[in-house]
């Protein structure tokens, strides 16, 4: 029987197996940030255990950082202390840190791929559930809790049970205006938010094969929103080309040797998955969520469904929407283009391309937040910032920002926000804020029109 991509990478990292229990999995790269690492460092310190492999850890500050005036001291005392703690911990343990203002700083899941830290066939973890993003490279990457961060610090390994395997196939031709974000929102709307629990998902089919690395990252990013630990896409020429020449990627012969290995990773013909689904690309339209979990999504042309379930009703009440309603024409005052789902250069190119020659609606507060310093720089180099400025938009500085609203970037109570992030939970973007998840194209179109429009008709 053939092996899956997931099996191949997993099996290559098993150090040991506990009888009737979990396996000891070796971790190639451990990414850390300010929010989920301090307690892990404390734990080790209290138990007098050294960090095993500081050379395999990379740190950034992103969750709790301001997106304006990053050159000034941080006003919020607790946030400032958290960052100082990260700096102290990294220094003490010899860990590379790309702190605030550093040219490599940015959202952890944006910087690791762009620096070439993320490579096919690796195992990667981070104390953040959207670590699944890195699966776009054919990497086993998943989020862990802080106790597990401490485990990896202590041993460079993780005790974990091997998840089951799931494959989602999407084949056919995508319609105009349908972006990778719509593909994943569609899959989650079809399968539900816990269809993937206990599974690691592989995305296969020509739709993913034809996607850019940025698009693949958007898809894998949201694997966790259907409950899966992670998602993966087989590495191919697109992947190799993306990794080649990046700062942390090997060079010359060394690189070619790696590519030869990476080429052996894709799922063998005849490999069997525990669960498999297939969708037709032509059925996908620009998507929007109307509720308070990412599975509550509809096509732009669809109406909010009827459902008498209590949690469904509660969710609609929170959003102040009614069953049977269309979202087209809803007036929107906030738009967020950012987060590790959609803050890469390609997302800003799509946005700039749309807003070029248009004007932002006066009622809309639009937060455009690049995922990293490098993305911000590239936006400038490509002249996209001028397009945004001319259209009445202002770019902010990199960070997680309104994706989780830990810093000052909060959507006010009761306001709707069309957001390119990945979660629409109650209060996620600020207490009482109402999030509508969408693609970068839908987000900027909303910002220009001041309301939700059917992008396929424009």
């Amino acid at each position, binding site marked *: 029987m053939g092996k899956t991509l997931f099996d191949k990478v997993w099996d290559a990292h098993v150090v040991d197996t506990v009888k009737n229990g979990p396996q000891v999995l070796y971790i190639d790269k451990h990414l850390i940030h300010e929010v989920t690492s301090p307690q892990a460092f404390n734990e080790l310190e209290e138990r007098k255990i050294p960090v095993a492999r500081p050379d395999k850890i990379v740190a950034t500050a992103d969750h709790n950082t301001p997106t304006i005036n990053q050159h000034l001291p941080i006003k919020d005392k607790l946030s400032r202390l958290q960052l100082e703690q990260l700096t102290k911990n990294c220094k003490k343990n010899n860990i590379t840190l790309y702190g605030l203002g550093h040219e490599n700083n940015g959202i952890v899941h944006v910087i690791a791929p762009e620096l070439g830290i993320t490579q096919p066939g690796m195992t990667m973890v981070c104390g953040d559930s959207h670590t699944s993003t890195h699966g776009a490279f054919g990497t086993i990457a998943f989020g862990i809790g802080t106790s597990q961060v401490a485990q990896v610090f202590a041993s460079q390994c993780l*005790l974990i049970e091997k998840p089951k395997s799931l494959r989602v196939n999407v084949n056919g031709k995508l319609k105009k205006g349908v972006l990778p974000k719509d593909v994943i929102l569609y899959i989650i709307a079809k399968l539900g938010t816990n269809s993937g629990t206990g599974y690691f998902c592989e995305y296969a089919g020509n739709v993913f094969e034809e996607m850019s690395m940025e698009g693949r990252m958007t898809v894998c990013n949201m694997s966790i929103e259907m409950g899966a630990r992670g998602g993966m896409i087989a590495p191919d020429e697109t992947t190799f080309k993306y990794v080649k020449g990046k700062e942390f990627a090997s060079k010359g012969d060394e690189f070619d040797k790696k590519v030869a290995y990476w080429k052996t990773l894709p799922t063998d013909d005849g490999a069997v998955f525990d669960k498999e689904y297939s969708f037709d690309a032509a059925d996908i339209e620009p998507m929007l969520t109307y509720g308070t979990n990412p599975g509550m999504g509809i096509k732009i042309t669809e109406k909010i469904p009827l459902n008498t379930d209590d949690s469904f009703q509660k969710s609609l009440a929170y959003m102040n929407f009614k069953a049977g309603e269309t979202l087209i024409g809803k007036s929107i005052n906030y738009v967020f283009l950012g987060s590790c789902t959609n803050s890469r250069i390609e997302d800003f190119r799509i946005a700039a391309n749309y807003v070029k020659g248009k004007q932002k609606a006066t009622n809309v507060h639009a937060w455009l937040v690049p995922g990293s310093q490098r993305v911000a720089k590239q936006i400038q180099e490509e002249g996209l910032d001028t397009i945004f400025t001319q259209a009445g938009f202002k770019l902010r500085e990199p960070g997680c920002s309104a994706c989780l609203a830990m810093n000052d970037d909060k959507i006010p109570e009761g306001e709707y926000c069309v957001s390119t992030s990945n979660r629409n939970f109650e209060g996620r973007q600020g207490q009482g804020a109402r999030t509508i998840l969408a693609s970068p194209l839908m987000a900027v179109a909303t910002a220009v029109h001041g309301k939700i429009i059917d992008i396929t008709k424009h």
Partner: protein
Amino acid sequence: MEKFIQLTDTAIPLPTENIDTDQIIPARFLKATDKKGFGDNVFRDWRYLKNGSVNTNFVLNNTEFKGSILVAGNNFGCGSSREHAAWALVGYGFKVIISSFFADIFKGNALNNGLLPLQVSSEFLKKLLQEIQENPSTKIIVDLEKQSLKTSVGNVTFDIDTYKKVCMTNGYDDIDFLISKKEKIAAFEAAL
């Protein structure tokens, strides 16, 4: 980590489904650098109204219900991987969460903090929730050794990973275990 072997207590019913970790502990409380104090803010935005006053409609503020067992709706702990959610629940005094389904990462985080995520069938959950709501003094007996749960609405058994069970009943954690594997890990690294 504290040992967990057996527990007999009353329970608090919270039938809401899909309770995500943003509800258990909102992001604005994640700025601390230690594990203390999160219990004060567990379910913060449900416990308090917007003006800061106590929401008397929320079950944790209803003095009729007490206990270290939380009985919650399906798909508990979905969303963010923040372990702060487990710390908040433990900090508040919960020792067991009963639901018909737990999100993966939350489940792992709970077990790593001595909090038992106990999965039952949705039919049993429904009966149990109803019984507690009608009769707040309903006692629940959880026996981890026997993997059993006993109440007036019936007795059921539950699953738990053998290794995790050993950890919980002995109060060990994964770090102790992994450090004991040092040589194997070194050998693996040498072969990389």
